[in-house]
């Protein structure tokens, strides 16, 4: 098992080297370096940008992310169940159905609350 994770670790490192190398060659060796303030300014279709970019934004995005976290965590619970499926009894399957129904209830609560509306 550690051998497999060693492979994954090497893969992630090399995976960063492979795209990193052309970027470095591009920005350090091959690409021209003639910066000026106008060239580096923010692109906004030819108009100068007004105000700060990192402004407050709608809470709607946060709510979607929150609903997503609920479903993500739920699925993490379901994956071990799926692997151990052969060993569980029919009663345990019904319990998992109940578990999913509670979650579906949560989804419909969010739905009725209007959390899923794009407004």
């Amino acid at each position, binding site marked *: 098992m550690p*051998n497999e994770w060693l492979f994954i670790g090497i893969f992630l490192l090399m995976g960063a080297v*492979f795209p990193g190398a052309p970027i470095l060659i591009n920005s350090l060796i091959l690409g021209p370096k003639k910066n000026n303030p106008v060239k580096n300014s923010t692109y906004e279709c030819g108009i100068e940008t007004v105000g700060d970019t990192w402004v407050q934004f709608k809470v709607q995005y946060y709510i979607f992310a929150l609903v997503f976290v609920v479903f993500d965590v739920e699925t993490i619970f379901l994956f071990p169940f799926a692997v151990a499926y052969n060993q569980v009894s029919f009663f345990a399957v019904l319990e998992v159905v109940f578990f999913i129904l509670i979650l579906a209830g949560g989804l419909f609560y969010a739905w009725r609350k209007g959390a899923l509306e794009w407004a």
Partner: protein
Amino acid sequence: MDIGQLIKDPLGTLGGLLTSLLASIGLAPGAIGVIEKIIGVVIIASFALVLPLFLIWFERRVVARMQDRMGPNRVGPQGLLQTIADALKLMTKEDITPTGADKLVYNIAPILSVVAIISMWAVVPFASNILGTPLNVGALYIVGVGSLGTLAIMMGGWASNNKYALLGAFRTVAQLVSYEAPMILSLLVPVLLARTMDLNGIVQAQPVAFIVAAPIAALIFFVTSVAEVGRTPFDLLEAESEIVAGFHIEYSGMKFGMFFVAEFLHAFTVGALTAVLFLGGWRGWGTDQVPLLGVVYFMLKAFVGYFIVVLMRTALPRIRIDHMLDLNWKFLVPTSLSVIVVTIVVDKLIQQAGITNDWARSGLLFLANVVLALAIFGILRRSARQLRAFEEAEGSGHAAEHEPEPHGQPAEAGAHAAPAH
């Protein structure tokens, strides 16, 4: 060296040869293992990074065909070298970092987006004995590193100090994060049917491809994966006509190129994962005798998936953002939840009834899926009818003060059936 042995188990034979070679120059066994792993990683990663050179050409040709054009056909035979020429051009472009950008995050984002996609290929089985590593939590690993790509897009959009890029990052949160929920839920179904998270194990558990036993889950997985790639009809995060280029607006040179490499490779990875999870991966005639044939079958199936992704891109217009979210939360998520419920109950009943024949099991699950699909269509039809009746009742009187709400989405009818006003 025995040729027959080489054909039967190419990785094992070559690996054994390499091990004895390295041992003969006096390296420790641990070091040999690491060197072999590095070689394996380099082979898979370079395969994954060279593939987009071909994919981009292929896609441009197909899109051109669909639009009655020729497409790139000048550089090299049939324009095959066009992408290499483009890459060389990108290499000589100036690398611009906009003023006020968050430099570290800005520079990491394109690298991370590629890392997220090629890391998936570490566990994808090309053939029964040709794969990066047999990870026993392969499916979870795919989901885990796959969502790093979402993070990369968010990082790029946020760090660019550009309002269009920030809008693209916002839409990323709304779209990619949302579509991940039904994707993971539908990924659960093949794991459930195979009783393992190991991707090679999932392929081995498919004497009958899982698309027969779980057609709805396969469809949901495919559609949501296409949405995860973020291309038409789900290309809201880089919608050219709305927010110029979205999250990669400020990127130039090879950093811009890396986002594109990631996108095209991701599109192909969607085809590959669909092939592994639902189409039987490397399974095909004669793979018992010659496992190497599995690579051919796997690549063919993956290319079919990729071809469909390209056709979807050319044929479909961009979906509106509220429709997209409704489709996800009000249709795909409830549907995938009901698919899971039906699958676990029916499969347990089949097990308790003592049916072990693969075709019988797949057939019964297919029937359950058909019944579920009919029920879903029935519910959709009923809600559409309710929506129409509701609109006609609202109709003339309130037309002026009524907010122009998104109409025509049957799955949204539930919200209208319970009017908030």
